[in-house]
């Protein structure tokens, strides 16, 4: 597993390719492989899935905690990628493009999850809130997690990309196709809402 300063290492057909944390722009991509995959070469397509699946899993895992959810969304991302490969220009920043597709897919799924959660809270059974057995630290982390999940995906995604994925504002703006000012405003609002949520709970 990748720790804070150790780069994530991906095994790709025998060779080891380091992927820098929070730097989706600096990953070496075989241009020839992309051209072949665009031409319908299934072995090239499989190689691309193999090379980039750790990056996609890692990014999705920032927003979803259940492995099955992560796997399902990752499959959706690669199906989208492989069915729209004609939109990829081999000379462009392919990992950045893939990161954008991944974040957009996560955004759609988070919106769906949020709608389901709202419906459950409105019409579903009342859940037990007895947490007397949990440790104080776990309890505060649970509150933070709940606060993060309660955030609108529009605010949650930039906050998670900044604080957990350690992307720069510029990288987030490119990934989300928004201006840097917009990202800064969203980050500010997300932090404020999270602090307010925690303040209310305490």
């Amino acid at each position, binding site marked *: 597993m990748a720790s804070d300063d150790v780069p994530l290492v991906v095994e790709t057909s025998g060779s080891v390719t380091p992927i820098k944390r929070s730097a989706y722009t600096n990953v070496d991509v075989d241009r020839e492989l992309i051209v072949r995959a665009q031409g319908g070469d299934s072995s090239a397509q499989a190689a691309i*899935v193999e090379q980039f699946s750790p990056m996609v899993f890692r990014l999705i895992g920032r927003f979803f905690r259940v492995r099955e959810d992560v796997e399902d969304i990752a499959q959706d991302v690669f199906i989208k990628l492989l069915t729209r490969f004609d939109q990829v220009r081999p000379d462009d920043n392919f990992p950045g493009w893939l990161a954008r597709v991944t974040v957009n897919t996560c955004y759609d799924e988070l919106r769906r999850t949020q709608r389901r959660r709202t419906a459950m809270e409105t019409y579903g059974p009342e859940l037990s809130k007895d947490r007397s057995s949990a440790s104080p630290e776990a309890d505060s982390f649970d509150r933070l997690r709940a606060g993060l999940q309660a955030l609108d995906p529009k605010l949650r995604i930039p906050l998670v990309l900044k604080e957990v994925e350690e992307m720069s504002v510029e990288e987030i703006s490119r990934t989300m196709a928004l201006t840097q000012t917009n990202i800064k405003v969203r980050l500010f609002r997300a932090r404020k809402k999270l602090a307010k949520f925690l303040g209310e709970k305490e």
Partner: protein
Amino acid sequence: MKKIEEFFRQERQRVFLPDAYFVQRVMARLSRKAEDVGVWDMVRKPSRSVLVLAVAMLLCFFALDVFIPVMPQLGPVDMTLESEQGPVETRVLSGTEDDGQEFIQELIAMEGEQ
């Protein structure tokens, strides 16, 4: 504040990695999807709305053409009289108000031919 930092640090350590069969599953899903491709899937998403609009307009024109009868250019009286008109009369009826000497000469010539 420290707790928030600690929380984000813990979140950073939570990394999912694909299992050994992930690529096969994606490729299998892709080939299954390729088998199910219909005409609609072949049209790119941004072009679909244009295509729908074009088809709808075409259907509208077709419906107008089929269900709204074409207005005849001549009424029943004109149509009956038209069959009885000679070329000179036709020429006089279709001529303009300010037909000059040339026009009269032309009519005389036509009368002569008859």
